[in-house]
């Protein structure tokens, strides 16, 4: 009890001193210097959850995505003081006030602590939690514009023809927004058929059964590890066209080498990262790891395993 009293006293004191500031006529109306989208990823029972705070002057949007649980709500700003980085807002959907304390604010990340409070006034006197406070999920660090990273296993990309015959058959389409394959005619970014990778941008290369391209996707191949390639170079993107695909086909030209006799394997070239612009102008990078089911080269081919990172924020080229 003593501690609480002491903290309350400090809180009052801090509130008091800030009231006295001459350049801050209305308490709690400071502008927020760290707008943007801040995310962190964590595991819950084996599935990756991603929490994102999208901070604007008026609202903080909270988005929780992932396989375990999903939620999304806006909290409208009621109060913010840059002195102790205390933010108080009201969430209409459940008629509840929340206080969020920020610390370690930089260009690339923030650390925050969120707590439900009874009222705006209660939020103002809520003491700043200690660094080791684990209540309310504790303090967590959120990275600015954290790309969505994932790994897709055994994406099946069958193909008809080939081996000298014209290739045909539907492509297996992939959507970075949901991180899943899709059958949508419009909401796809890249697509696979055999060893061929196409993008939802540009024109048909001339083979049978290519889907209509209705987006602005493009691609290029960068050299490096997936971690090395930290941003997209927007000057390099090319789209599919009748004169060739953005990801060139053929052994040694694009993402794979064909080993020839005696093993006849398709192996992804080490150090090749496929950089994509998505259908709506966002950026993603992909490292293809295997062309075989369960990454076992003695198993069925045309099963992609790849790691990727997708930057969901508009106009942001880093990932």
């Amino acid at each position, binding site marked *: 009890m003593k501690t609480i009293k002491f903290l309350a006293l400090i809180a009052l004191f801090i509130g008091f001193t800030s009231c006295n500031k001459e350049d801050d006529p209305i308490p709690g109306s400071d502008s927020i210097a760290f707008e943007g989208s801040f995310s962190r990823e964590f595991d819950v029972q084996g599935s990756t959850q991603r929490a994102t705070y999208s901070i604007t002057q008026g609202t903080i949007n909270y988005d929780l995505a992932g396989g375990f649980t999903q939620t999304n709500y806006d909290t409208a700003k009621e109060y913010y003081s840059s002195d102790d980085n205390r933010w108080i807002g009201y969430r209409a959907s459940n008629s509840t006030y929340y206080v969020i304390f920020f610390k370690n604010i930089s260009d690339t990340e923030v650390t925050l602590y969120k707590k439900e409070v009874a009222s705006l006034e209660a939020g103002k006197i809520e003491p700043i939690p200690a660094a080791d406070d684990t209540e309310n999920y504790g303090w967590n660090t959120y990275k600015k514009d954290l790309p969505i990273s994932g790994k897709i296993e055994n994406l099946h990309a069958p193909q008809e*023809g080939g081996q000298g015959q014209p*290739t045909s058959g539907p492509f297996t389409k992939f959507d970075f927004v949901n991180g899943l394959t899709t059958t949508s005619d419009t909401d796809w970014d890249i697509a696979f058929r055999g060893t061929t990778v196409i993008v939802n941008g540009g024109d048909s290369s001339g083979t049978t059964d290519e889907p209509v391209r209705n987006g602005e996707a493009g691609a290029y191949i960068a050299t490096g*590890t997936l971690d090395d390639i930290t941003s997209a170079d927007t000057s390099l993107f090319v789209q599919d066209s009748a004169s060739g695909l953005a990801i060139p086909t053929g052994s040694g030209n694009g993402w794979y080498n064909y080993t020839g006799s005696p093993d006849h394997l398709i*192996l992804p070239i*080490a150090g090749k990262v496929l950089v994509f612009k998505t259908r709506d102008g966002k950026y993603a990078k992909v490292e293809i790891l295997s062309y075989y089911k369960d990454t076992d080269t003695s198993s069925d081919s045309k099963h992609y395993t790849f790691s990727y990172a997708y930057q969901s924020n508009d106009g942001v080229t880093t990932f």
Partner: protein
Amino acid sequence: MILNKKNIVIYFSIFLSTMSFAQEKEKVSIDSTKTEELNEVIVTATCTIRQLSSLPLPAQIINKKEIRNINSLRLSDILNEQTGLTIVRDHGEGIQMQGLDSDYTLILVDGVPLVGRTAGTLDLSRITVGNIKQIEIVKGASSSLYGSEALAGVINIITENPKQGFKGDIDYRTGTFNTNNASANINYKKKKFGISVFANRYSNDGYDLDKSDDLKTVDPYLNYTFNAKVGYDFSINTSLYISGRYYTENQESIPTGLLKGENNTNEWNTHVKLNHKHNEKWNSYVDFYTTRYKTDSYLNNPDNSRFSESDYNQLLVRPELRLAYNPTKKHSFIGGIGWTHETLDRTFFTNKPEFNAPYAYVQYDADLTKRLNIIIGARFDKHSEYESQFSPKGALRYAFNDKIAIKGSVGYGYKAPDFRQLYLDFTNPTAGYTVIGYNRITTRLPELQNEGQIINILVPLSEFGGALKPENSLSFNAGIQLKPISSITVDVNLFRNNIKDLIDTQIIARKTNGQNVFSYKNISSVYTQGLEFNTSWRPTNQLKISGGYQLLFAKDKDAEKAFENEEVFARESPSSPSFQLKKDDYFGLFNRSRHMANAKIFYTVPKWNLNTNIRATYRSDYGLRDTNSNSYLDTYDEFVEGYTIVDFAINKTFYKNYQIGFGIDNLLDFTDPQNIGNISGRLIYGKLNIQF
């Protein structure tokens, strides 16, 4: 010559150790008569009869005695035991010399070339050693005398000429895998007329290293070689030789469980040689050589319908006139003019291409002082289908005294684009890609385009306007010869070959079936460099111990650049994330061992009429293919483990004319079924030889 520090250190440490060794030994004994090796002569190096020991070029001779004592059967067996040479199997048993592929070593029989490189390799197992007088090996580019293909060096097989009297021998060897080799030699010469006839039959049941499948590693085969040489001496100064050789081989072919077929090879050549001595100073030689190499292969489906057929029919005709002029004993000139006519009829060729190439060469060989010998020469080849070539060469040797000599040479070598690279028109029936020779592109590609097979052209046709350049190299050799005492010789040679304009395939267009059209282009540059060391010691007339070692670095210049620029990555397992490789991680070209070594002991017991020998050949780790997905051979790739082959032979002569022999090749029974198909495991054999 570019050398790294390591090489220089090795060079000098060997130099110094042999020097000190030499001084110690000298005091102990000065040997008497072992002049046999001193008198060995070689014709390949200069096109003239030349003492091997005073030659300024790196060269070696394998004589008949050694071939007999080790009971060698095919040329590939014996070459594989020589320092710096190794047999590489790629559409036949080819030789790797100074780190260069078998495509770049010219193979001659009595000075004229063998043909039949269906896929680049000239199969040396084709050649029986039964009638060979000696094998001459000259290392370093030698296009200044021999033109195309003499990039890494030249191997010349010298066959016996008819000798006075009547004699002959029959030879039979049988061993593991039902290997049967039977040879007969008959020689007759009386006064002016001489004839020698040789026949060989070789058969083998093949063998199977991998018992897990139904297929054999090597299918059974049978071949015959017939050779006849007729000599006539018109006078003491004029002689004529006519020789003919015929080789035929039949091999079963069972590439998969379903398909069955045969490969048939037929080869013949005729060689007419007229020598005339005008006077003490002038000699002239006329050669007329014709050879044809033919293969027919087919594969049948299980219902006996034809699955595929391919044939190959190459003809080469070459007249050559050579003049030798020796104004004094110290100076000699040789010059030649000739003309090569070559045609090839082959499946996947739409036309029957023809090569015509006149050439001329000249060489000057002089002992400028008692100690200094130089050779300079050059050859010009004019060619109908590719750029004409000028190939110079220079060499010198300086003898400080009888014990120490240094030598060095610089030469240009080239290999002409082959018929395939110029004229192939091949579409793989199962995979659907197309390969078109360089000279056919401008007519063939528009045809494919009209047929609607092409989506787009990636390399404009205008780039195929000029001629494809021959692959070429500049080769440097520098060595030291030591003879501290008469029973010991030590030879060290440093070499470097800078090879450029290597011809490789490139994609020139995309097809509507998703496959590509390939053609050929001068692309890469590689270098090979290293050190060769040979020593022999004859403590007594009965015992000879020899050893050899080659250190080799063979690298692609573009690959080195890619590693330097940090553009190369690898994976630890096929599906793990990639990581970056460092400059030092680049190993070099595929199928090259950094270290190769051999050691041999030959021992004769005259009172028992017995000779025996044991030989060991070592080859260090090498990479056969990229296993971590970056197309380069780096230290993280899986390597074929180094290995040693030990061979043993013993022969005893009875009643002067009968010899029986016994031997075990590959005594340790080394095999590597996964990676090495041409090492069959232990071979035990017996031999009988009767002379009359």
